[in-house]
Structure formats: C-alpha cells, structure tokens
C-alpha cells in the first residue's frame, strides 16, 4: 500500500486482516508493501496461502472483499470472482495439473460473456468429473486487452486469448493429467514491462531493512566497496548509459565525474524528490515502495563523488514518503550503512530529509539549493553549475529519485545488464505514470524505445469508454503532446524531443476525442504562470501575456494575429528565460500549434458561439456533437 492505496481504503483492509489475525482466524503474516503500480485496482492484497501455492493478487479490495478473502480463500481455498489481477507471467508449458482457470472477456463491451464462458467451462469440467478439483474464476484484469475472452490456467500461467465456446472442450482436455498446451490459442508474448527501478515495489515491506536486504538491497554498495575505488562506480554508471530521469536527461556518470573533479573540502549529494509534474506519481511510488533502493543510490552517488553529506529534498505533500525515507535513514544508521566508517570502509557519510513547501520551481537545481539553504526558491543563472558551486558554494550533485533507484541495480548487476535495454542514446528502462482517459491508469516500467502505442494499448488497456485517442501528453507542463498519428514513436530522449515534447519525469496523460487542446494547453500554461518565481521578465510577463491571449482565443475572441503573437512570445521565452521553467513553458503551446492548429482555428473562426458550445461540452464531459 502507498498513498494511493491508502486513499482507496487500504488502511481499513490492513487493520481488518490484523484483527482477524489476532482472533486467530488468519494464521498468515500480514505484510504491508508499497504500490505494485496497478493504481486502477487499488487497494491490492496478495494472498499466499501455502508455500507451494502461487500468490494470488486481489484488486479493489474493500472490507467486504477482505472478509470473503479470509473466509473463502484462506479458509476454504476458494478463489474469489471479479477481483483477481492475473499474473503477467505468460507460461509456456503445463508443469503439473491445473487447479484453477481464470476467465475474462477483454473486449471493451465486457458484459455477460465472461459469465457465460465461466459457466460453459464449469459445465464441461463437470462432464469430465474435474468439477471439484478445478475452480473457474472470473478475473478483474488479465493484463491483456482487446483479445476477446482470455483464459489463464493456474498454476502454470499458460494463457489463451480469443477463446471461443468451441475451444472450451480442448482447453478442458488440457487440464487433465496428460494435457498439452494449445499452441494456436497460446499467448506467448512476454510482458513488455521490465522492472528494474520498481523491482521491489509492491513485493516487500518498505518499512523493513531486513526485507530490503532479503530483496537484494545494499548488494550494490557492498560490491562497490569490495571492487575498490569510487572511480570504478563512476565508470560503471557511465558505461551503463544511465541518464537523469528528472527531466533534462543529463548523463549521470558524467555529472558524477564533473562533481568529483571539482576541488573542495566538502561535497554534497541531493536526491530531488520534489516531483512537480501535477498528475505524476512515479517518484512518490518509488520512495513509498522501496526507500532503501533510493537511499542506497544516494550513498553510492556520495561514495562515487566523495561527498560527506546528503539530502533528500521531498515535497511536504508526500507525508508517507517522508516518513518511510526517515525510517530508512534511521535503520541504515543503526546498521552502519550511514554514519562513520560505513561497512568498515573508512568512509563517512550521512543524510537527512529536507521538506519542500509547494513550489514547482524548487525542482530546478539552483532553486532547490536555495530552498535547502532556507531561502526562497529563486533560480540562479548557470554556470556555475552545482557540480562546481552548489549547496553553500560546494560542489553538489543533484539526482532524481528514479535515477538513484536504478543505480544500485546497475552496480550490482553490471553496466551491460542495464545497457542491454533501450535505444542508442537512451539506455535502460523508464517508469511512467499513465493517467487520463485510459482504461487502466497505472505505473509502468518499460525499456526505453517502447512505442507509446504499446504503453497505452497493450499495457494500460487502451482508451476508456471506447473513445478515440487524440493525443498523449508527456513531460507535464514542460512537455508536448504526441498526436495519434505519431503514436508509434518510441519513448526515448531523442525521439520525443524530435516531436517537440520531452521525456520529462514520466507523466503520461492520454486524451480522447472529446478533450480540447486549447483548454489543456491553457491549463498547463496557467500552471507555469502560477509557479513562475517572477525573477526574470520573459517568463513573468511573457507567460502572463501569452495566457491572456490563449484565454482570449478560448472565449472565441482571438485572431490569427494573436496566434502569431503567441509564437513570438514562445520563442522569446525559450531563448531568454533564466531557468528551465520559463524555457520549457512554451512547449505544450508550440507542440499543439504544430499538431492541432485546427483546434485553435476552430475557435478563431467559430467565434464566441463556438467557444460557448465547446465550453458546455467540456463541462459536461461530452463531445461537441452531443452537446449540440
């Protein structure tokens, strides 16, 4: 459970299980974990009855479902309908008798078909006298979409797609002792997702150091110490091709090298956990799900650059992340992973938490430094870069949460293991928080180079309510919008930039045919205007004036000259703003002017009556046509 899960009622469910445990109704240990990423099904509960049984993941668990889990699943070994989130493992062989069959109709018009298939399979099983040995259960989600009825056999996880009534007999045949896999129905494509950063999220208790260690935590650190010099860590990270996940994508190894090269008596490392993109929650989920991984990354960064002090700069709006990081720090200190002479290496390092206070611009490096120093967060001109003169004038290395979480894995498994994933310029994996009008909003981690289309359709189940996708926004207020026609673009720094968007920190927002680009762009720009620190004129005045023009267009009072003026302001802001906020604020505007100009023109040509109609449609969540 993470904050999302808690918001969805996970606390109640945990205390319910605990109470059952105290009353002796449940003999299993109850463990809290971070989020596995399936936000659409929060809160989630994984049940592992006996060592030999495969774990079963239940979604949308409230108290009533929890009670059924205790009584039916734990008590009688019966699986519960409509709540199971099926395993993403795609089994290829039947290694033993089947004990349960999951069914789910994965086409959008999901109605009685699932129930019908369930009943048919049950009948067929009864005919063969398998009825009491094999359960047939309706699943909540299969991780496969638009593939008709999907059936998964447990425990083998052999998965069949597009199953028709006439296939049932064959499937049931295969459940017998000498059953064979039906190759024509088999879904053998492995899951697109690769979990490196999210390796432990949702799988262990994030508040336990022992759990972290049992899941490979601090192996990287031990490795770094035994392999020798800090420079070796830098070399590994450089060879892995890891680039910053906070937005700018600067090569991490190079940043460390530069910081190490700056002569100084003290150096600092900072974990940037200010996650400013409104509507993105990757960093929070990582901090809440596996805080020790991020801490280990920070310690490794500090060791590599020769820092003696580190900070976690976390948004105050993330109290659970703050709590779990503070706990991780205390545990690490108690076990000699922080403090003096870490693990007998003779090297000293400690870290502490500093809170942000609700200013987006504080995610920018120099503003973040000002904020840790206790001042208002105004950016400073660079150079000097923080790697030369940062916190209190000392060389400082700032890295994003996700960047740091990848570091221990790379050090433990080697640069090649990481660089195996990805494209030429973008190595490894990237976590995205997919939200908006998709069917299943969730956290995904995919190798760089995965097409956006695959993320939206294959992993997140496509669009909600069968509406058409219009565009996908990446990079939040600093990013752009990828139109449907470019959906096969692979996610990588270079390809997204070529489209006028950015990778950003990992927010990915899907918009459907009813959404209005002018409206969304005004929303993003308003955000930037609100968050502008006001230090430099291009951003402070340019942003404000551009917003006025956009709003004017949105009222149906705009002209073609206004569009030209907007483009001019965009150019000025890009060139002349002091920090990244002002430089990138025009991105959503420019990208929509490039791909969705007709929507601006519709407002200009349609005038006030069109604008009113559009507004009504938007406020009712309807299409322009439906709103009349």
């Amino acid at each position, binding site marked *: 459970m993470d904050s999302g899960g808690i918001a*969805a009622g996970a606390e109640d469910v945990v205390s319910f299980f605990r109470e059952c445990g105290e009353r002796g109704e449940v003999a299993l240990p109850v463990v809290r974990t971070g989020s596995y990423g399936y936000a659409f099904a929060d809160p989630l509960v994984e049940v592992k009855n006996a060592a030999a049984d495969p774990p079963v993941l239940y979604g949308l668990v409230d108290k009533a479902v929890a009670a059924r889990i205790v009584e039916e699943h734990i008590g009688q070994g019966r699986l519960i309908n409509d709540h199971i989130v099926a395993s993403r493992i795609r089994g290829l062989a039947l290694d033993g008798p089947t004990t349960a069959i999951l069914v789910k109709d994965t086409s959008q018009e999901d109605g009685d078909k699932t129930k019908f298939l369930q009943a048919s399979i049950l009948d067929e099983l009864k005919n063969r006298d398998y009825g009491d040995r094999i359960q047939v259960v309706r699943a909540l989600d299969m991780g496969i979409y638009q593939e008709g009825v999907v059936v998964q056999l447990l425990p083998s996880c052999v998965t069949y797609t597009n199953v028709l009534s006439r296939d049932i007999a064959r499937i049931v045949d295969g459940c017998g002792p000498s059953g064979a896999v039906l190759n024509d129905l088999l879904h053998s494509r492995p899951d697109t997702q690769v979990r490196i950063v999210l390796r432990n999220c949702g799988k262990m208790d994030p508040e336990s150091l022992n759990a972290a260690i049992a899941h490979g935590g601090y192996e990287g650190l031990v490795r770094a110490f035994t392999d020798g010099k800090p420079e070796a860590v830098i070399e590994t990270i450089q060879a892995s091709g890891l680039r910053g996940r906070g937005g700018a994508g600067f090569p991490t190894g190079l940043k460390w090298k530069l910081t190490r090269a700056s002569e100084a008596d003290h150096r600092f490392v900072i974990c940037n956990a200010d996650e400013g993109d*409104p509507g993105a929650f990757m960093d929070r989920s990582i901090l809440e799900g596996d805080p020790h991984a991020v801490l280990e990354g920070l310690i490794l960064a500090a060791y590599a650059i020769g820092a003696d002090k580190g900070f976690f700069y976390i948004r105050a709006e993330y109290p659970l992340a703050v709590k779990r990081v503070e706990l991780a720090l205390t545990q690490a200190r108690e076990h000699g992973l922080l403090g003096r002479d870490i693990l007998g290496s003779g090297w000293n390092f400690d870290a502490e938490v500093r809170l942000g206070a609700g200013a987006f611009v504080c995610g920018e490096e120099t503003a973040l430094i000002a904020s840790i120093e206790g001042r208002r967060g105004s950016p400073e001109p660079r150079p000097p870069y923080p790697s030369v003169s940062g916190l209190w004038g000392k060389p400082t290395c700032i890295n994003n949460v996700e960047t740091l979480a990848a570091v221990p894995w790379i050090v433990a498994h080697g640069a090649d293991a990481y660089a195996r994933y990805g494209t030429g310029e973008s190595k490894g994996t990237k976590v995205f928080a997919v939200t908006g009008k998709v069917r299943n909003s969730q956290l995904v981690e995919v190798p760089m180079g995965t097409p956006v289309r695959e993320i939206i359709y294959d992993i997140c189940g496509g669009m909600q309510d069968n509406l058409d996708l219009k565009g996908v926004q990446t990079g939040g207020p600093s990013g752009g919008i990828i139109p449907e026609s470019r959906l096969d673009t692979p996610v990588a720094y270079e390809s997204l930039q070529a489209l006028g968007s950015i990778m950003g920190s990992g927010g990915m*927002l899907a918009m459907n045919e009813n959404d209005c680009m002018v409206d969304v762009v005004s929303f993003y720009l308003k955000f930037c205007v609100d968050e502008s620190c006001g230090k430099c004129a291009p951003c402070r005045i340019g942003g404000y004036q551009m917003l006025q023009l956009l709003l004017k267009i949105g009222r149906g009072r705009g002209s073609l000259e206004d569009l030209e003026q907007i483009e001019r302001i965009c150019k000025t802001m890009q060139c002349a703003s002091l920090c990244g906020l002002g430089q990138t604020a025009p991105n959503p505007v420019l990208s929509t002017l490039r791909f969705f100009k007709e929507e601006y023109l519709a407002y200009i040509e349609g005038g006030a009556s069109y604008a009113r109609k559009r507004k009504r449609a938007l406020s009712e969540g309807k299409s322009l046509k439906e709103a009349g």
Partner: protein
Amino acid sequence: MQTATKSPLEDLDTEMRAEIRHCLDKWKEKDGNLIMILHEIQNRHGYVPRGASLFLAQETGVAVARIYEVLTFYHYFRLVPPGKHNLTVCNGTACYLKGSGRVLGELERRLGISEGKTTSDRLFHLETVRCIGYCAMAPAMVVDGKAMGKLTTDDVASVVEKIRKREEGESNGQSRN
C-alpha cells in the same frame, strides 16, 4: 504612533514560546533550518501565526521580512488558521481532465466561497492541491485527511451536507446541555 491593539508578539503564550525554543534547539546545529522550523510550527497549529514569526525573528536574529519572504513564497505555508473541516480538491492534470472543475465549482457554489478561502463561520476551508497521487481515481479530493475518488457533483454535495448536518446536530446537542 500609538496603537490600541496589542502586538501579536505580546499575545504569544508561553507554551508557544517554549515550543519554538524547543524547535530552535533541535535545528540550531543545522544550516538552512528556517523552512524546517516553519514546517514544524505549521504542523502543530495548522498555520504559522504572526506572533510565532515575530518571536522566531527575535530569537534567531533573522529579519521578520526574510521570514515572511519565505512564508509567502511557498504555497504550502498558511498565514491564517484553517477551517474546522478542510476540503482539498485535486487540480492536477489527470483530475483536471476528468472534471475537477465541476467538483470545485459545485463546492464553491455550495459553500459560497472561492478556492483558498474559509467560510465566515470557519466551518469549511476550501483549497486546491496538485495531485494527491490518486490519479487513477480522478477526479479526487481530500476531506479532513481522507481521500475520495471518482467524484460526481452529487458526491461532493452530499459530503458538504453531511458535515453540515453533523455540525448542526452537535451544536444543538451542546445548547441543550
């Protein structure tokens, strides 16, 4: 200039003074502690009272203007006490796209206040926040620390009315005693 009213500093009770001194002790070894101290004060009181800032300035020698510079720069800090019930509507991108505007509009109409304001009876405080990590259940809001998702305008109306009813019940109960 003569003022009839006492300065907020004189109003500050000894308990708060002790609290702030304690906080200063805890943080005095650390550089750049001002924001963390302000966080602690707000955590305790729900806002940063003017008296607390003045006292902090007096104790640390930091100019009041500098404390206020920080307080007003960061959205998180409040200078006025919150209401008895706090409604925080998420206005992050995912929620915006899914109709947080409708939710906020309904609340503003029902409470007769705009975002960032408290009702005159101090019963409700309405504000917006950017993403509470509940995007999958957008549009979302937090009511007195408890999150709710997939909101409709009917849902929020009933939340407000329920709180109102409960409060009326309580005050009636009290007046009968």
